[in-house]
């Protein structure tokens, strides 16, 4: 049993190559999963690595370090297209959770209700993965493969989320539906990003979470919106329904989820253009 909190990414990668420690970031998913008073096994705490935290504007893309906390995102100065992400950050758990939990942890934990995922999907985000052997990137939509399943390989760490500049045009909005105000898991959540020309939708990026094992984009609905008025548009409900596979659980039944998703989508789009 060991606990390492290196300052340098290379040290972290060496530790990952040498064994299979559990990666620990904010701990807000890891600790609730154990009834013990300490994390068992070998732990690699990545929160000491400065290179993994913070937001940088690099050639052609905006790079968000995997260990960037929700409260960092709330405070960051970012283009309007990131409003959905910032709004989602504000709704993750509570201030306490936002001060510890990270974007990378949210993605790697891969809960169907991960609030960070729909806002990143509408930004065409990619995930950067590094290991002692090198690095690769995957579109976020490919990285998360199912309920709590990702393409993260042994020895790898998610180092950053990358948003191409091309996807940072327009404005965005996010709405979350839960049974109470704070500390609540989403029944459904929606992120939308629109570009418009004089009140006409030029492009749309839409995503719904908590209504399928992994949050989805809605390409067919996005296409249907192009050319419609931002003030008065029609959402083809059947196309929304086809993209989702909602489940019954203690928070809501499947039928309700499907219906609520359409309503939330409408409201989110309206919310983009106030």
């Amino acid at each position, binding site marked *: *049993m060991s606990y390492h909190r290196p300052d340098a990414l290379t040290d972290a990668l060496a530790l990952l190559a040498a064994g299979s420690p559990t990666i620990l970031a904010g701990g807000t998913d890891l600790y609730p999963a154990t009834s013990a008073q300490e994390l068992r096994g070998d732990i690699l705490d990545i929160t000491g690595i400065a290179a993994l935290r913070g937001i940088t504007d690099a050639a052609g893309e905006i790079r968000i370090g995997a260990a960037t906390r929700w409260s960092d995102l709330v405070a960051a100065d970012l283009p309007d297209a990131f409003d959905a992400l910032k709004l989602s950050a504000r709704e993750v758990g509570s201030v306490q*959770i936002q001060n510890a939990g990270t974007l990378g942890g949210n993605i790697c934990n891969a809960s169907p209700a991960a609030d960070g995922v729909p806002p990143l999907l509408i930004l065409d985000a990619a995930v950067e993965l590094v290991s002692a052997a090198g690095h690769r990137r995957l579109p976020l939509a490919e990285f998360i493969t199912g309920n709590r399943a990702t393409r993260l390989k042994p020895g790898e760490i998610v180092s950053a989320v990358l948003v191409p500049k091309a996807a940072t045009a327009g404005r965005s909005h996010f709405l979350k539906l839960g*049974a109470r105000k704070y500390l609540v898991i989403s029944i459904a959540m929606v992120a939308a990003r629109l570009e418009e020309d004089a009140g006409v939708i030029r492009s749309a990026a839409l995503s719904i979470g908590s209504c399928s094992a992994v949050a989805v984009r809605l390409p067919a609905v996005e296409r249907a919106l192009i050319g419609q008025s931002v003030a008065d548009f029609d959402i083809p409900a059947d196309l929304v329904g086809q993209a989702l596979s909602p489940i019954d659980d*203690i*928070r809501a039944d499947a039928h309700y989820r499907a219906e609520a998703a359409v309503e939330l989508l409408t409201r989110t789009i309206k919310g983009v253009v106030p």
Partner: protein
Amino acid sequence: MSLDAAPSIITVNGTALEIRANPGRRLSDALREELGLRGTKVGCDAGDCGACTVLLDGAPVCACLTPVGQALGRSLQTVEGLGAAAELSLKRAFARFGAAQCGICTPGMLMSAVALLRHVAKPTRAQAEDAIGGVLCRCTGYTKIIDAICDAWRDAEPVAMPPAGQSIGAAIERLDGVAKIDGTEVFGADYWPQDALRVVVLRSPHWHADFEFGDVAAWAEARAVQVFTAKDIPGKNCFGVIPPLADQPALAEAVARFRGEAVALVAGDAAVMRDLDLEGFPVVWTPRAHALSVDEGKAAAPIHAARPGNLLITGRVTCGDVAALDGAAHHVTGGVETAYVEHAYIEPEAGAAWMDGDVLVIQACTQAPVMDRDDTAVVLGLPSARVRIVPSAAGGGFGSKLDVSLQPLIGLVTLLTGRPCRMVYSRRDSMVSTTKRHPGQMTATIGCDAAGKLVGMRFDGDFNTGAYASWGPTVANRVPVHASGPYLMPNYLAEARAIHTNGPVSGAFRGFGVPQAAICQETLFDELAQKAGLDRLEFRLHNALRDGDVTPTGQALHGVGIADCLEALRPHWADAQEWAAQADGRGIGIASCWYGCGNTSLPNPSTIRLGITGAGQLVLHQGATDIGQGANTVVTQICADALGARVSDFELIGPDTGLTPDCGKTSASRQTYVTGKAAELAGLALRAEVLRRTNMGEDAAICFEDGAVVIRRGAQSERLDLGDGIWVEETYDPPTTALDENGQGTPYAVYGYGAQLVKLEVDLALGKVRVDHIVAAHDVGRAINPVLATGQIEGGIAQGLGLALMEEYVPGRTENLHDYLIPTSGDMPRIDSILIEKPDPVGPFGAKGLGEHVLIPTAPAILNAIRHATGARVTRLPALPHRVLAAMKAARHD
């Protein structure tokens, strides 16, 4: 760099301290166990309650989710470190507003508020609400906490202590408040003797199963722990709050009847227990068929051999001729189904045990110290005199801490090992093993004449009482007495049954089944008013009980304040109607309550000892456990005025079964009334004795002055000769009578009344309900302490709102505060309380109980407002968005 091995330096509240803890350890555990900083509370170990909130570099985080390794080298502040001027001012505001009730959430609230106040000195209510959104409070309904945060900048003086004779009615700060706000209060998990063994419970993972142990001795030896099972129990392995029906083993014997039932104890040294894994404990389970719902329970083989049909008990009240309903001009019939509701106090059960000579001492959180003592003594085969219960502060109870939980278990370990021990339930332990509110399946028919006068009511309810009796009989008896509501009901037949299942044990929860029954009755009243063509408030007023009216049990009532409550709401009702008309989706609702204070037709005396020591100290032995509701303060206020002393003259002792006489349990809204009455009698008796000894007239003043007691009357003054001290003891037991086979008799000596008005908005497309405003009028007889009274109302409303809109304990699926949702600060409406004072002829200074009444009207008033807004009749609780939407659709098709 690897951080294990060596001790590290952690800076807490500006002081560098050496800590020996694995860096992967939860910071909360390290602070409490290694550094002794126990002001940081633990309610869930999962980020869900915020009780453990500390400031790391000034930002609030959950210490339970923070590895020690991440706190090293950073600035860490805990409640113990709050000392700056603005922080002291905030603490004083908490005291002034009564923002701490039980106090278990208070450290987390303070830390969250401090973080806000550092940036915003004069926050808005919305900012304050947002800042504490991550900290749950189950007692206050958040209103007073937000008041305190918004007013902290004012740095006002503490509330002045009233002069002698003027304590009743004064909004004094709670007498036990300082420790709650400083973080020094000792809750169940906060004290243990050195070298105490740690104890954990092995629980059944099955609803219903036979089990056999394997080689337990070898398993234990390999791990250097000790294991205790039912066969180690020296006494009678059976407890229960109602002795003739006691049926619950402290540790199950051969068969476990519900998921979460305790089957074995493991005890060992703290270091060993920290690493212990119960996985692989040698026990073999053979699951049996199980029943979870009432219908399954009725059909299943008896869970207890002597109870065919799994019927524990039936309660019945009838009067007049219910057949008269057939001739009524208007009828309504309907049913409601409610869920299991979890008490969700923020403090999971915890305590410690040790031997003091041959007396077993147990210090744990509880609502009923004497019952704990007697139950524990029976299980351990000890005379009661050899068990002493010292209640720790209780971080909320709401009924569930009436039953013993860990008391016999830690008692057993200490008795058999001779060593002190302690146990802290995890959130999961607490949720799977302790009692719940009974799910109710109720139907009723109610009728009125053409003028809207009630003709009669038929009520039938099945209550899922779970695997053991607990308070099921009380629920079955209370419901038929109260199911008519506070209205004149000439013809009546009500039956309630408690049915066993393999679900969680249902017990006492604020209101003992009456809140469920009120949902059924009050929602039907709205429909009946509509049929009769009457305004919903006027219909209730038209039928409200008046002084001298007779209840369905044949009892003539006096000091009946329900009409006063409804009348007080009338102007607000008119305003609310206007408000509702302004927008789609708005609705308003109203509902009433009544509730008998004290045990149903059973003796429940309280005894108060009061005296003046030889050194001139006034001492009140106060045996009523204060679980946050304020008994310490209210009982003292009553006693002070009866005696003619100042509250500040008193020293309080207890509760402690070794020191204080029995004041019964803190339940049934009885402490202000019953213990208060005993305190009044004791105050009067001591006054009479003092005046007799000094030969002074009735109107003399008793003055406590630096160790001397001086009696003054005009120019006369005499110093009391104290000798060895002067003591009095007075007992009060409410005058009740048994109920006959028709439920006729006097079940309670005192009733309290209330009515609440709800304004809410329903999201018509999503079915989400947002309660905007509640006006609550409660007849308390006499408001002994208005701040404590309104605090009860606000907290009760929060629980009623949870019951109506979000709380549903699904056994096996919501065993944590992540999936079991209770209201947060952002879910509460504005609340305006109106205290009605219609004196009760027997209550102390006219006072009535209040603690349970407050949550009864909330849920039905919310459902009535949802129906008003949308036409939807939600008949299955909670009214989650999908249920509301479905009910709206059903209403459109009707």
